[in-house]
């Protein structure tokens, strides 16, 4: 077997050196009635050719985003990732290295994490960021727990226009950790009434910008009201490219910003692996979950980087840790930081502007389709349309016509029948005029039937 270097001769020699007759002598502690004699009921080993063929067949059954006019967003976005990024992350020293616990031989990883943390802080308008979380949804859940620790309160208010998967993630861990969650109902026309839910029993308010329907809101007043009640404002950014064009939550007064970094450097991959971002104020740094890369010097005075403030983490603090997180999203963070370095500020701004331009053009094209209404006045690269009839059915028929037109909101909230005529539509720099025209034409046809 090509991945196993030992030969039968090696094994015999080694067993002799160890001083046992056979390999099962080394499994002597296993009760005989549970030591399996038969192989698992699974296929036997296969060559590289066979594995490629088998997996290739499964892949071929899927409609890849690049093959059709594609407008699906809602928390994961299709952007162009420069070829350089994927080549660099596959370098042995990045792909196959371990967590940088021995900093003397991990300065590559530690320096890029330090650069990544800085970029995330700059993007979000916050003072400090960590070295990544699993994804945006779990980062939001961890931010809520962080707010509980800081305020010593245990009730979170979740905006109605927070991505339902994010809301459910927060709600699940909150319920089982015996914390309280108040979730406002979705408001496709725009959020309202959140301020009425804030009192001094609340530890945090969690709000998404752009929200799940694509609306853009100034969080400044909400931040002020939240903080006046002694609570923290947690802003969630699911489309990180938006921060190339929109005022960052840090500037609007957020206390913690969490985000999904998938848009930069990372492919769609059916939902994972993605990249959680978490940034906050310097004064909360010791309550942050996750790893932190910090600057220091070595014994010769050379500038160096090291994982620091580790006493917060599970391997030291155990049951009093800020989180149980260990492995996070290192390589996805590397892809993000390489992509963002390649873009630079000018490139990011141009990319964001292109995204917004594409979305504006698409919104105008779809508005002209009979029966279709665009709900958003302000948006970045995603907006919501109301269609006549059942949106999920419309999307399914569009798919059969070769257009992936967006996410029917009922996919995320099947029980809210009043929202079953809504589609969340995304457009990025990869969408062309032809795509938009194809969408409008296909939609017109589908609705005419």
């Amino acid at each position, binding site marked *: 077997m090509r991945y196993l270097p030992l030969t039968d001769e090696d*094994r015999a020699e080694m067993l002799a050196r160890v001083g046992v007759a056979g390999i099962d002598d080394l499994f002597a502690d296993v009760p005989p009635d549970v030591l399996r004699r038969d192989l698992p009921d699974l296929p036997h080993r296969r060559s590289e050719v066979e594995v490629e063929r088998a997996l290739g067949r499964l892949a071929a059954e899927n409609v890849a985003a690049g093959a059709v006019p594609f407008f699906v967003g809602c928390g994961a976005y299709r952007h162009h990732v420069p070829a350089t990024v994927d080549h660099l992350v596959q370098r042995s020293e990045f792909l196959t290295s371990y967590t940088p616990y021995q900093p003397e031989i991990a300065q590559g990883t530690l320096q890029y994490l330090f650069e990544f943390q800085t970029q995330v802080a700059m993007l979000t308008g916050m003072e400090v960021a960590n070295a990544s979380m699993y994804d945006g949804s779990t980062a939001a859940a961890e931010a809520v727990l962080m707010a509980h620790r800081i305020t010593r309160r245990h009730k979170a208010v979740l905006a109605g226009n927070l991505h339902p998967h994010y809301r459910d993630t927060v709600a699940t861990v909150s319920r089982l950790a015996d914390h309280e969650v108040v979730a406002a109902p979705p408001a496709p026309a725009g959020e309202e009434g959140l301020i009425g839910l804030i009192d001094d029993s609340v530890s945090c308010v969690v709000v998404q910008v752009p929200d799940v329907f694509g609306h853009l809101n100034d969080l400044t007043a909400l931040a002020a009201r939240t903080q006046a009640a002694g609570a923290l404002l947690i802003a969630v950014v699911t489309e990180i490219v938006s921060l190339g064009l929109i005022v960052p939550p840090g500037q609007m007064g957020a206390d913690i910003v969490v985000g999904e970094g998938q848009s930069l450097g990372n492919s769609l991959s059916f939902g994972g692996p993605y990249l959680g971002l978490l940034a906050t104020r310097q004064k909360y740094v010791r309550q942050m979950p996750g790893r932190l890369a910090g600057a220091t010097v070595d014994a010769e005075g050379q500038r160096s980087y090291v994982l620091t403030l580790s006493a917060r983490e599970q391997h030291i603090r155990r049951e009093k840790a800020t989180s149980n997180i260990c492995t996070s999203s290192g390589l996805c963070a590397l892809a993000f930081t390489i992509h963002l370095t*390649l873009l630079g500020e000018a490139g990011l701004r141009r990319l964001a502007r292109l995204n917004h331009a594409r979305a504006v053009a698409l919104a105008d094209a779809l508005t002209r389709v009979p029966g279709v209404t665009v709900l958003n006045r302000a948006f970045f690269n995603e907006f919501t349309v109301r269609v006549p009839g059942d949106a999920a059915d419309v999307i399914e028929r569009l798919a059969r016509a070769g257009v992936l037109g967006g996410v029917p909101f009922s996919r995320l909230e099947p029980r809210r029948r009043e929202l079953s005529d809504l589609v969340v539509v995304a457009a990025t720099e990869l969408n062309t005029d032809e795509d938009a025209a194809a969408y409008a034409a296909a939609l017109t046809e589908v609705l005419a039937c």
Partner: protein
Amino acid sequence: MLNRQGRSTAAGEAGAARAATFTGNRALRIEEALIFEIGRPEVSGVDLDEPPDFALRLGGLERTAPIGLPGLSEPETVRHYVRLSRNNYSIDAGLYPLGSCTMKHNPRLNEKMARVPGFADIHPLQPLSTVPGALALIAELSRWLIELTGMPAVAMSPKAGAHGELTGMMAIKAALLARGERRSVVLVPESAHGTNPATAALLGYRVEAVPARADGTVDAAEVERHMTQDVAAIMLTNPNTCGLFERDIAAIARLVHAAGAFVYADGANFNAIMGKVRPGDLGVDAIHLNLHKTFSTPHGGGGPGAGPVAFSRALAPFAPVPCLTAGASGLAYVEQAEDAPPPARPLGRLCAFHGQMGMFVRALAYMMSHGADGLRQAAEDAVLNANYVRASLADLMSLPYGNRPCMHEALFDDAWLDGTGITTLDFAKAMIDEGYHPMTVYFPLVVHGAMLIEPTESESKASLDLFTATLRDLALAARRGDTERFAGAPRYAPRRRLDETRAARHPVLRWSPPKPEAAE
């Protein structure tokens, strides 16, 4: 005279202690500045179309103030990251004897398959009718995990091992709540990985430590002493973090179940038993598996991983959404807890979307390559390799539980270093100079100055012979009191020992623009 980093190269500076080159470089090893020091906001390594002139629809929220992000051209970007990479150790370059991490070879076939557009370029929320192959892959991987664990159900969505632990413990809490019970204690062996008590505490449980007996394993009688109706679960690792099979585990499971509690197993060490022992046969109720350990997906310098959780019949109903169920009409994908057919009562959702699909493809490529026969052989080779290392070092380095067979990892302590003035840490740092990443040190906590060595099945006999010969040389030098070799180690790595105290006392967690110079 200043070099590129703005550091003085005058004699007497700290730089003079190193090789006297103008750049501070040493041949292939480059001192690389930060992107903020070499990049510029107006430079970009990506050519993008010029956006058309159009009216913004941002509701007045346009970002106008400078962000401060540096940009580099493509050649400069490539140089920056290639140079950084040269300062990293990696499994592709050398053995990582890290106990409990299972640093095995990361096959590149995995990478190739994960990047096929039919897997990489599909969106989690496109209509499920357009991704039947993705669902089929998740189902196939589930089948392999179900067969290997001998347990009836598996939750695929946890994003890492610790996330899987959280999932398993949440399922246990949900199962108890469904019975109308609120228990407040979780038993955890003293040797457990820190994520175990951290997870239990997150869910509001009080953690009670269970001491091991003299041979390093957990005694069923000891567990019985701690068992009350207030214990929700015991969290075990098997083989345990001392590298030993918990031979009382079936008995422990029986008495835990008799008290109405559950057995959570940390599957980090599954590499020792895959194809040989099924956790389901031991009475385990929930076990997470680390695809980035046992199943070869790359560590990536700290992730991404994946931590699917297998469930017993008792816990299967509480598995989170989304979940795949095989029905008469094929695969059904349940994304909402309310849609789960009884008796399923999902505990909720762990994260957005479906889980770490990219890691599923990699793991399945690995498993299909090995097959049932190859996976069992891998476990046997892993155990053989660890024992070979143990046998090769047992006369020089002390084994806290005696020179007896271990599983996939061998645990030494620092008793043999007594009186030498050399610590486990010094020994580890000296290994770096020899070209090896150190083994896991100071874990598990139950042993003083622990050194936990897990070679995995990926090491050839020749590799192990050189490794053990090197450790023997170091051990003999330590016993001779040759402190010189250890005190200043590492000497030849890109950096000497770092001032971690300074990093923690005065945390600098980001680059900041230099303050304007005061008038000269």
